[in-house]
């Protein structure tokens, strides 16, 4: 029986999961769409991971969750580690690329930059008010152009003269794109222009004021798009490495953090999520005008976790 660790990263668009062994090798991987239902996505990821390992040989002893649904999925999987995605990504990437200095990350709805010195994150920034230039923007534009977002990169590379698309804001980029289409630009030039716009937008917003030093690793779902990778390389004048497992880095980081929990907290993970029904219920606390929205998570009929109250008056206790 070998010990293993599970990491699940539930993002706005996709849910990722990995199982790693004691030597930190990935022995199972899964990547699928969240489709607006994080509990179901996590369940499907766990099932897919279970099918890739021999559960009579491999015993998962700790679980880490990350991503925007980390708390919900953490409650559901009874995770030992519930960690924000920035830390998880930094931990995952610095493990695989100990010499990395800059991590560029573009996900479904957020983007971030992490500066690393000597294998440890020393500075980071994350997009704040605006989701321009993230994965969801690219998918909606792909839909408009009638191509699959997965084909974007290859099409972009075939362009000889990328169109100049206004990069500052999603709304302006979109109207500029429509305008360029209507005046007759070819699709590949527009797609290449979009990829450039994503890179320019990123560097002018999230990357503003940060010193980008090689080696640079680019990850998150958008790193699968070779057009954007090339656009970053052109803009930065340096090589940009897109790891084949780049989209799994958050889940990998969560699994690494789970592997670090003390022995006393370890317990066998049963892969039995299909045997239970997980429901959430929203309660609006009426004790003051803050009207906190408290989320209660139920495993079958048992309340297993709750959060969202700003003060103790709104606390809903979990019966053990």
């Amino acid at each position: 029986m070998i010990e293993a660790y599970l990491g699940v990263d539930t993002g706005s668009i996709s849910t990722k999961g990995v199982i790693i062994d004691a030597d930190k090798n990935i022995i199972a991987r899964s990547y699928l769409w969240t489709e607006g239902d994080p509990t179901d996505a996590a369940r499907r990821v766990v099932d897919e991971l279970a099918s890739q390992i021999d559960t009579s040989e491999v015993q998962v002893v700790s679980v880490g969750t990350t991503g925007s649904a980390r708390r919900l999925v953490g409650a559901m999987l009874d995770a030992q580690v519930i960690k924000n995605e920035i830390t998880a990504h930094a931990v995952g990437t610095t493990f695989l690329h100990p010499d990395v200095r800059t991590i560029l990350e573009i996900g479904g709805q957020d983007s971030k930059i992490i500066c690393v010195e000597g294998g440890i994150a020393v500075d980071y920034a994350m997009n704040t008010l605006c989701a321009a230039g993230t994965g969801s923007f690219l998918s909606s534009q792909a839909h408009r152009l009638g191509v699959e977002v997965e084909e974007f990169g290859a099409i972009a590379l075939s362009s000889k003269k990328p169109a100049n698309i206004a990069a500052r804001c999603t709304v302006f980029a979109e109207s500029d794109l429509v305008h360029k289409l209507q005046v007759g630009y070819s699709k590949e030039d527009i797609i290449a222009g979009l990829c450039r716009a994503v890179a320019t937008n990123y560097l002018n917003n999230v990357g503003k004021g940060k010193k980008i030093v090689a080696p640079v690793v680019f990850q998150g779902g958008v790193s699968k798009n070779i057009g954007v990778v090339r656009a970053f390389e052109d803009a930065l004048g340096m090589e940009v490495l897109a790891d084949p497992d780049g989209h799994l880095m958050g889940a990998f980081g969560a699994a690494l953090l789970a592997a670090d929990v003390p022995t006393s907290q370890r317990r066998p993970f049963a892969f039995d999520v299909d045997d239970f029904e997980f429901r959430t219920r929203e309660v609006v606390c009426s004790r003051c005008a803050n009207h906190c929205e408290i989320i209660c998570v139920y495993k079958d009929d048992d309340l297993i976790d709750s959060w969202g109250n700003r003060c103790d008056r709104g606390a809903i206790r979990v019966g053990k």
Partner: protein
Amino acid sequence: MGEPTRRTLEIGSQHSNDYVCAPFKHIMGAYIEALDAGADVLMQFTGPCRLGYYGELQESILRDMGYDFEMLNFANVPSGSMKEYAAYCKRVVNPHLSIPAGVANLLACLHMVERMDSYNDAYLARAGFEVEHGSFAAAQKRFFQDMRDATCAADIDEAYRRGMAELGGIAIDKPADPVRVGIVGEYFTAQDAPSNLHLEDKLLAMHVELARALNMTSRHLHYNEPNLRRSISEYVAYDMGPTSTLTIAAAKRYMEQGFDGIVHLKSSGCTPEIDVMPVLQRLSRDYHVPVLFLSYDSQTSDTGLDTRLEAFYDMIAMRKAR
């Protein structure tokens, strides 16, 4: 007036221009709640940013809404002379106001501000390491009540003495070399807990020692901008805005003192504090101390803030542990 709630911000936003900065909306909501509770005089400060125009605008919005009140808007005293302030207060609020009594009470009030800021410094340095959950918050609540009950300078001193003694007596478990974070930024957002979604409480819960030089004492009572600017003469040649010099000087001092990180708070669109950001980035590079930039508006999500703060804490704590 009770603590502002989410409703305060909602009604404030409802009656404000969408693009105006968040402090305008918070104050607007508080005005409406105050008027509904029976207030008949509203007061607004002035300052060297858009704040100088806010009183006039807020008054005009509230009058359009049908409220009847007196507006004590200090932007109407452009000279800034004490004599004119007093004359203005007499004219607007109370023609029979006794100047000597008014001055005596004002001095007591400033004394209270200074004592409360000093108390808060001690609170921020220690509260993150409490052994019993909630012990510091409970002591602070008692201290605030004592201050509320104070009627003269002697009461204020007594409340301060009692409050500080109680604060010093609460059991803490503080490591020899704790994670330390300095808070800098825009006047309203960095000081007003409901505006910054209780950022200080969130950081204290992560067992961090906090310092925030920005308060009324250091910005008004002991503010000497040219002097302060001398400490950052390598970075700044002139006064850039209402709190710019204080923000930059405090950040630099924290970095020199070996703080592990700086958090910069501002309302979204606050031009003076946006101008400060490149200077802070340069300081960050020169001193190798990370700065977390946070921008707030009326839609800022608590969850998004938690994610950024947790990541910032993890980063500086991991860096320190090495």
